[in-house]
Each structure stands twice: as C-alpha cells, then as structure tokens.
C-alpha cells in the first residue's frame, strides 16, 4: 500500500448526482447536459443570470420538471425513472424555500408550518404546536404563529417559508433566490440564517441565486450556469481566481456586448440633444 493510498480520505457518497441532464420546455431545450455531484453537508450555490436555466435546474432537482434525458440521483434514486409514490418518499426528506415564500394565504403562519406534519405524521396536535413554535423560533419568528402571511414583510415571509421547509427535518434544503427582492440588511439576515442552519444541522443545502455577495458568503462550492450549460464549478477562491471569460464577466458585472452597443446608440442620440441639460457634446466657448 502506498503512502498516498494510506493517507487518502474516502470521498463520501454524493447525496445528489446529476448525469447529462437535459430539460425541454416544448421544443426548446433549456438545459443541455448538466452534470455535477453534491456531497452530504455541502452548500452548493448555483449561480447564473436571468434565463440561464438555473431555476429550471432547481425545479428538476425537486421533481417539478421531468428531464427529457439524463439522470437525477437523489439519495440513491433516479428521479427520472421512479414512480410518483417513490418521488413523494424522497420529497418528504427534502425542504424547499420558494422565491416569494409560496405560503398558503388562507392559513396562518403556524398552520403553514404545521401542514407537512399534519399530512405526513400522526403526531398529536399539542406536539405539532410545539414543533411549529420551535421551527419559527429557529428562523427568528417566534410568536408569529397566528399571523396571516399577508401581515408579514417580504423577509419574514421568506423566513416563514424556511420554517415550513424545516418542519419535517429535511436532509437536503433547496433555496430559490433567497435574497431576491429584499433590502441588503434583510438579505444578509437570510444569508446568516442559511449559515446557521448549515452549522447547526450539517444539512446539504442547494441555493440558486444571482446575488454574488450572498453566494460568496454561504457557498462551499459554486456552479455557474450560462444558457443551459455549466460554465464553471469550484470553491469561492477558485471562482475568484478563474480566468474563464464568462466567469469573469459574471463576477466583474460586465454587460453583454449587444447591450453595450444599444447604450452607444442612446449616447449618440443624447449627445445630439443640446436642449437636454448635462447631455450633448461640449461646445467650444
């Protein structure tokens, strides 16, 4: 046995494994063969611009979109080939926090969090009440059980949605754009909540976002998607050091060339409008 073999640490089995995943909307292919693995306890951030296919990828990961080809292995089962009953077994072990919360407007916050427990367990009402209170306290919403979702702010709604996603003590937690539409302070609060969950429960967390600050704060590993293809995968450090043009463009916030072209045209138009204050070429005095 070589020293290398003696020192090598066995890699944990991936909890999520994608192989050549293709997803179509009608005739249009959105994802063109995505492959990656996620190991237990890892936080993977899926980065990408609008229309890159990152939300479709997340929907495929939770079984909301059927792949047109390829494999999605979650906890040893291929979502593309399992029955609805088996898919529901897997879904009981995952939690999903949607972009706008997706709380049920006709139920109180407490009833929203209690819903999966009432549907999938035979726990007494009193026990469910205690779990609900605990989950809401974990996300900083203790005492909000009897509020209606419409009475909560955007950040609170997202926290309540996380509490609902945590209700069944999931092994994998998915987040769709957790900081979208929130002010920087509330968004930072959501980031810290994700970090706390990671530290406290060693959960596997998948986050889809386009917020770079948030991604660099919470990610163990990042994956950049562009036009349905994986452009780069790596740690925050590796991504920062990457010289890959698309990665650089995304991280350095460089506009698309065609958009720059349109702006040039706008600048040309405003340059010829001396009546617009502060615009136009400086004329000689």
């Amino acid at each position, binding site marked *: 046995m070589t020293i290398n073999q003696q020192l090598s640490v066995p890699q944990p089995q991936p909890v999520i494994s994608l192989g050549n995943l293709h997803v179509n909307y009608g005739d249009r292919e959105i994802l063109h063969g995505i492959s990656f693995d996620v190991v237990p306890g890892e936080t993977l951030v899926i980065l990408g611009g609008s229309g890159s296919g990152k939300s479709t990828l997340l*929907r495929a990961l*939770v*079984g*909301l979109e059927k792949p047109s080809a390829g494999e999605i292995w979650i906890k040893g089962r291929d979502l593309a080939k399992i029955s609805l009953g088996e*898919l*529901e*077994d897997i*879904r*009981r072990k*995952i939690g*999903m926090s*949607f*972009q*706008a919360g*997706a*709380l*049920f*407007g006709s139920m109180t916050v407490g009833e929203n969090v209690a*819903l*999966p427990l009432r*549907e*999938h367990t035979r726990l007494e009402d009193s026990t469910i009440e205690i779990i609900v209170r605990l989950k809401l306290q974990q996300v900083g919403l203790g005492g909000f059980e009897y509020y209606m979702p419409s009475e909560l702010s955007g950040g609170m709604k997202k926290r309540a949605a996380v509490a*609902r996603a945590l209700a069944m003590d999931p092994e994998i937690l998915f987040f769709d754009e957790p900081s979208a539409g929130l002010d920087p302070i509330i968004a930072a609060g959501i980031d810290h909540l994700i970090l706390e969950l990671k530290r406290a429960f060693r959960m596997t967390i998948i986050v889809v976002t386009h917020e770079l600050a948030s991604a660099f704060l919470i990610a163990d590993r990042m994956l950049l998607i562009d036009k349905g293809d994986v452009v780069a995968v790596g740690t925050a450090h590796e991504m920062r050091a990457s010289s890959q043009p698309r990665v650089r463009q995304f991280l350095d916030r460089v506009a698309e060339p065609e958009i720059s072209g349109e702006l040039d045209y706008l600048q040309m138009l405003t340059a010829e409008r001396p009546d617009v204050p502060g615009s136009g070429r400086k004329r000689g005095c």
Partner: protein
Amino acid sequence: MQIASLIGGRTLNGLSYVGSLASLGARATYYTLVGPFQGKPLRLQRAIAQAMETGVRALPILSLITFFIGLILALQAAYELRRFGAISAVATAVAISMSRELGPFITAIVVIGRSGSAFAAELATMKVSEEIDALETMAISPVRFLVAPKFLAMMVMLPCLTIWANAMGILGGSLFGVAQADFTFVRYIRASVDSLLLHDITTGLVKSLMFGITITAVGCLEGLSTGAGAEEVGRSTTRAVVMSIFLVVVVDLFFTALFFFAGKS
C-alpha cells in the same frame, strides 16, 4: 389541405382537453370516494366550507333567478295554452320544464358564474404564486388537497340547489297561476306536484350531478394549467366560464338524448 390540417389539429386539441378533464375528474373522484378508506384523508372541513360557499351562499340569487324563470315560463306557456282553452295546464308545463330542464340548467349557470370562475381564479393564483409547486414539493397531492373538497362540495350541493331551484320555479309560476289562471295557491302547488313523475325529478338530479362534476373539473383544470402572470389568471377564469357553459350544454344534450331513447325502449 390547410383546412384539413386545421380541423385535425383542433380535433386533437379538443380530445386532449377532454382527456385531461377525464383524468382530473377520475383522480378527484378517487380522492373523494376511495382515498379516505385507503389512508388518504379528505379535508372534510374544507369541503364543508366550500359547500357553504357554493351552495348556501348561492341561495338568494338562485332563488330570485329561478322564481323569475318560473314566472316567465308560465307567461310563455299561457300564451299558447290560452288559445286552446287549456290555461289550467300551465302548472304542469312549468313543473315539468323546471324539473327536467331549466332547474338543473339555470342552477348550473349560476354556479358556473359564482363557483366555477372562483375555482379557476383561486387555483390559478396559487399556481402563479408557486403554492401548487410548494404542495407538490411537500409530497401533498394538489388534487387531493385542493380539488377533492371542491368535488365533494359540488357533488352534494348541485343536486340540492337544483331541488331548491325547481321549487322556486314552481313558486314563480304560481304567481301567474293565482293572478291569471283561477288557481288558488294550494291548488296550483297540488297540480304541479301531481303532474310530476319521480322520473322527471331524478333525470334532472342526475343531470345536475353531472353538471357539478363538469363545472368543477373545468374550473380546476383551467386553474391548474394556467400560465405565468396575473393576466393568465384572468384568461383562465374567462376560459373556465365559457368552457363550462359549453360543456354543460353538451352534457345536457347527451343525457337528455340518453333519457329520451332509454325511455322509448
């Protein structure tokens, strides 16, 4: 050639729509009638609340409409019957028309306007705000959770509303009977009841049950299959109303023909 392809395409779309309706109807019926005995409980409280909304709260407007329809029927029937000196047959004409056709049909139209559109709007809004997706990711069937209570409520309430509508129609007819056809109120009601066979009432109730299933299936299917955005919610609601009215007429024709030919043989 283009026309043939257009007709072919439309026919296929129509068949696919009916297939989707049948599939949703079958799943909802399973979760309503079979699921509760297989450990998949129905949300009975939600079904009761839905029945209150669909049934009890529809009573004032349904009563008013069917009362007027009964009165209109009596006026129209009397116009022709008077020429033959048979104005006393007006009670029979109103009672049979209401029980066999207009009671179930008018009830269905009122329920489409109040509840079919509401089902579509509710589910479409939930779809747009990702609440349906949230249910699915929590391993909760949207059909069991959202559609089945509506099915149960409609299957129970539509026949009940139809009986009420028949009664209100006859009451409307009695206004003319008492004022213009020398009936006393009691004699008019007795003449109406005597003219009705059990068969007249049951055919109407069978039709109303089928209307209830159709309205729920269309409203829920349109809601669940809505696209993205608030505009689509409005479009789904409109489509649910138009499609429900059309399909209720088709179902009415089918069952009326069925009862006619079954009655002859």
